[in-house]
């Protein structure tokens, strides 16, 4: 059997996570005893998963996170800096060398929304980055946006506007609410982004 059937990385990752039905799990387990190719693929899959875990805990990603993600981080001893600007309002913020994660708690009622994008804009309104179709709990009262701590630690004093935008099935956009983050740099570094273009 081991020479004929092989398992892909996705299936092997599910096996590693322990999410497969027992019969399938046992089939893979038996197969792995005899198949070096699948064992090596499983090693690669685990390395990738553990790499993603390391990156997530390092706070370098810009993404939307859940309450339980933040709880895991706090339980692990990570230092989570949170800001909660009021809907339509602004907040003064910064980040220190000791912070591990940086999170904006965006108060919003998203009841009835099918798709919501998070748009990050310059104070002039020009969009810099967009997280499309973010996960959200319609019954919750906020979206937890994790800003890259790597970016924030390097950022000069500056202002960023975050917008939650509802997108309907026809692609028509409607601004739901926006928040202004007035970031003050407290770490040593240049006072503005350095232009490296020749």
């Amino acid at each position, binding site marked *: 059997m081991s020479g004929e059937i092989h398992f892909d990385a996705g299936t092997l990752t599910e096996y590693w996570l322990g999410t497969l039905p027992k019969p399938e799990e046992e089939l893979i387990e038996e197969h792995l005893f005899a198949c070096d190719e699948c064992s090596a693929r499983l090693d690669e899959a685990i390395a990738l998963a553990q790499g993603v875990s390391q990156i997530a805990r390092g706070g370098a990603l810009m993404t*939307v996170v859940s309450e339980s993600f933040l709880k895991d981080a706090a339980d692990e001893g990570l230092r989570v800096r949170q800001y909660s600007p009021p809907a339509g309002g602004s907040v003064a913020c910064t980040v220190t060398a000791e912070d591990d994660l940086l999170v904006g708690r965006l108060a919003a009622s998203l009841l009835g929304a099918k798709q919501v994008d998070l748009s990050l804009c310059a104070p002039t309104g020009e969009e810099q980055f967009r997280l499309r179709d973010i996960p959200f709990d319609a019954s919750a009262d906020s979206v937890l946006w994790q800003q890259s701590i790597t970016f924030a630690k390097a950022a000069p004093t500056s202002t960023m506007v975050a917008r939650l935008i509802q997108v309907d099935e026809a692609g028509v956009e409607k601004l739901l609410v926006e928040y202004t983050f007035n970031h003050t740099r407290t770490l040593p570094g240049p006072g503005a982004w350095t232009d490296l273009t020749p």
Partner: protein
Amino acid sequence: MMVLNQHRSTRRRGQLLEQFGVEMLSPSPAPRPRVDYERLTKCVQRLKERERAVVTHSFYGEEEGADIARFLGVSEANVRVIRHRAIHLLRDCMGVTR
């Protein structure tokens, strides 16, 4: 079983410890393949938001499928489909060919 135990996550390892006892576990797991973290960060950031959410929440803290499904507002089966797709996208992006 000794070989397989090397592949298990902490949680799975705990389950096996309970089932078979400490003596069944290998004392020296095989070294994992090296990961280029800078490249992987770019690859994870390139994923669609829901794909990124699924892999980060699955692999950091090892959240249960039901919790991730609730967070995304989809079924557990959909979480597995999204995770499967994301893993293949990450492997492609990282140049894993095995």
